[in-house]
């Protein structure tokens, strides 16, 4: 008999209209790193939220250390030694790292006061012990994503968890940080902690995990020993068919310069200089990928180009016309399309019907309106054409955008942006959180636009994506383009070092 710390047996969890988990089994051994693999929407997060007590399952049994338990809320989970690092961080922006870590189980002094000193000391010790570098006194909103994640992990350790769930922890990290994280996980298991790791990245599973449970469309497919399998088998288990990981494309035929950025400087909302004299040229018919860790000025760069943010100095030219300081509307009209990073926050008005979202930038133009009066007939005709052409799966063009799945929301945005036939297409993280099929679709779409002679600017934190799709890679670090490389002439390792601030020479040596 195996010694399981966690056993989830025949778990079933329904949401209105969908069975997110159907008879799923998951058994985790003490001291192992157990991967949970599945496509987007397969039900991984749901299963873990059940384990963490955020959801109550309709059916099934949970055992911790062999004892059947009922996990009614996160408190119970905490007491059972289960900690979770969520896909979207559960950190209070305005609090310090230490405050976030102790929240809910604060050390006290004199019976009433929060003993922040003691907490900070304990946290420092913990981070020493497990090699999790954090500044306990820093405010969350001032620190990097990587440090936020370490704070999240510390939060579970601080509560004495010996079972830690990590929900897609690597999506936001650089290769170096990922490597570091894997090191941390390995040192944690040697201390007797068990880890459940959710990830889409098969290589990480191969590198870090002992066993892997696969779920597909809410059904458990099975559990495999990682050292008895390979990437291709895992992929087909996950998707249910063979997968081609390499995007097919012909060589680019770059033409005239479409976008030219010269010595651009941009500040963020807190007046910190984020883009520091950046130069960048993009030609028609090429895809330029910007590789870089989040927070190195990508957001500010894109916002400056699209007129969402004012610039400090330097210039932006579109087709040799200066567009610095123009309004977003003007920039859009001049031929820039923008697939934004956060589709819920920027890309869509979630409470508008999908039809009205399709004309978000063009509603005031003919034929969608006449003398300031909207023509809903024309709007919906057009929307339905886009829905058809771009295969957006929606019950109707009148459905609120909120009701669409993430992938289809993204498709709707891409349809809208691409269909305007822009000279420059900016795509920021266009495949974030999407399933493999959707990703393929979007990559092909970007390449097709390039082949039509558009200039495409791709910003992504996924190196795979950058290497696969781009014709040219510009590595961005600390507000500057620090390297310009060809995808065929580099690898993730080198890019990772460049992104972390190494010079080209040093990175090349590695």
């Amino acid at each position: 008999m195996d010694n399981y710390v966690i056993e989830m047996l025949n778990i079933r969890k329904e949401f209105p209209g969908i069975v997110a988990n159907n008879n799923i089994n998951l058994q985790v051994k003490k001291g192992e790193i157990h991967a949970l693999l599945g496509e987007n929407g397969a039900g991984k997060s749901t299963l873990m939220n059940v384990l963490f007590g955020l959801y109550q399952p309709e059916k099934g049994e949970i055992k911790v250390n062999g004892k059947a338990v009922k996990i009614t809320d996160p408190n119970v989970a905490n007491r059972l030694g289960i900690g979770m690092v969520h896909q979207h961080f559960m950190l209070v922006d305005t609090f310090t790292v230490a405050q976030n870590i102790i929240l809910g189980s604060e050390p006290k002094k004199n019976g009433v006061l929060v003993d922040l000193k003691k907490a900070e000391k304990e946290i420092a010790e913990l981070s020493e012990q497990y090699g999790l570098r954090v500044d306990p006194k820093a405010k969350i909103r001032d620190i990097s994503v990587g440090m936020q994640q370490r704070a999240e992990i510390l939060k579970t350790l601080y509560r004495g968890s010996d079972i830690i769930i990590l929900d897609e922890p690597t999506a936001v990290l650089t290769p170096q940080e990922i490597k570091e994280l894997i090191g941390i996980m390995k040192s944690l298991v040697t201390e007797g902690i068990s880890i459940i790791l959710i990830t889409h990245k098969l290589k990480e599973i191969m590198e870090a995990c002992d066993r892997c449970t696969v779920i597909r469309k809410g059904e458990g497919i099975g559990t495999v020993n990682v050292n008895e399998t390979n990437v291709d088998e895992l992929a087909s288990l996950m998707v249910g068919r063979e997968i081609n990981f390499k995007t097919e494309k012909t060589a680019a035929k770059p033409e005239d310069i479409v976008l030219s950025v010269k010595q651009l400087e941009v500040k963020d909302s807190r007046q910190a200089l984020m883009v520091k004299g950046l130069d960048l040229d993009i030609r028609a018919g090429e895809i330029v990928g910007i590789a870089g860790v989040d927070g190195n000025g990508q957001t500010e760069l894109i916002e400056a180009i699209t007129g969402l943010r004012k610039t400090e100095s330097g210039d932006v030219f579109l087709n040799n016309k200066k567009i610095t300081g123009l309004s977003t509307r003007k920039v859009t009209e001049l031929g820039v399309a923008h697939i934004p990073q956060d589709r819920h926050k920027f890309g869509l008005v979630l409470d508008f019907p999908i039809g009205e979202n399709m004309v978000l930038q063009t509603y005031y133009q003919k034929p969608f309106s006449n003398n300031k009066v909207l023509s809903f007939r024309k709007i919906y005709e057009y929307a339905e054409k886009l829905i058809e052409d771009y295969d957006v799966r929606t019950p109707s063009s009148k459905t609120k955008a909120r009701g669409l799945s993430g992938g289809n929301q993204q498709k709707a945005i891409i349809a809208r942006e691409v269909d305007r036939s822009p000279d420059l297409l900016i795509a920021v993280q266009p495949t974030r959180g999407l399933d493999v099929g959707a990703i393929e679709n979007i990559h092909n779409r970007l390449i097709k636009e390039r082949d039509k002679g558009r200039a495409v600017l791709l910003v992504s934190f996924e190196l795979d994506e950058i290497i696969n799709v781009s014709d040219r890679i510009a590595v961005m670090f600390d507000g500057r383009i620090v390297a310009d490389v060809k995808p065929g002439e580099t690898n993730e390792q080198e890019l990772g070092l460049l992104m972390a601030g190494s010079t080209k020479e040093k990175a090349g040596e590695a």
Partner: protein
Amino acid sequence: MQIIDLLQSMMPMVLFYSAPLIFTALGGVFSERSGVVNIGLEGLMVIGAFAGITFNLGFADTFGSLTPWLSLVVAAIVAGIFSIIHAVAAVSLRADQVVSGVAINMMAIGIGVFLTREWYGKGQTDSIIEPFYTRTIPVLSDIPIIGDMFFRGTYYTSYVAIGFAIIAWFVLYKTPFGLQLRSVGEHPMAADTNGINVTKIRYIAVILSGMLAGIGGATYALTISLSFGAATISGQGFMALAAVIFGKWHPLGAMGAAVFFGFAQSLSIVGRSFPFLQNVPTVYLIIAPYVLTILALAGFIGRAEAPKANGVPYIKGSR
């Protein structure tokens, strides 16, 4: 008039004008810091004033000079209970919190006056005979300058209000409860995953806001109007709400804002006796407090960031 003399004659007025606003604004801070918008402060003040006055009328004989203090306690309890309506709507029933606040305001004045009619047979109660009186603090009032400004002819309730503000600051920023309360207002789901009972915290916060607004309303009634009627509380709750925002949702900020309102108000009254203002139409002095507030906000206070989850009902499991 010398500036010192001026301050000496104004400060007691500033303090007594501010006290009800401070109490109520502190209530607003608790509620909104936990993520529950409370525009029902006005109504909660009404209930507090009503409860304070009716208790005072009924028990002045029994408790003598202790009555006003007990009236405050009773007002706090009654308004606290009344605020549960808002808590139920805003927290459990996921109501639009602004709407629920509006309902609280209407309900409070309706119930207050309705019961006054039922109990006293008229729309306004008699004057109480055990109100608060201003006091002069024995030793402290002898301190030169400061003594006259702060310790002569002021109400104990003003000191209590300031004391409460400091306690509120302490509770919100130094205790586990405060940390949890603020986290609930910023990121309820994070709080929830940390095992904090969001619903419970929000209920406590709203009830606290009810109790404090009740004390605020009763303070007003027991120091100024000395009776209860439909017009006793007319707009002070909204001024307190303004103080919450003006003070950037910070207890000491809210207190500062309330004192600022009091200051502007007394300036507009004391200012009438300035020779150089004698020819200025009174209307300018009367609107001065409000215009000054707007100017202050536009000029140097600027953008205020509300707690992130303020006004958003927390629904477990939603993203």
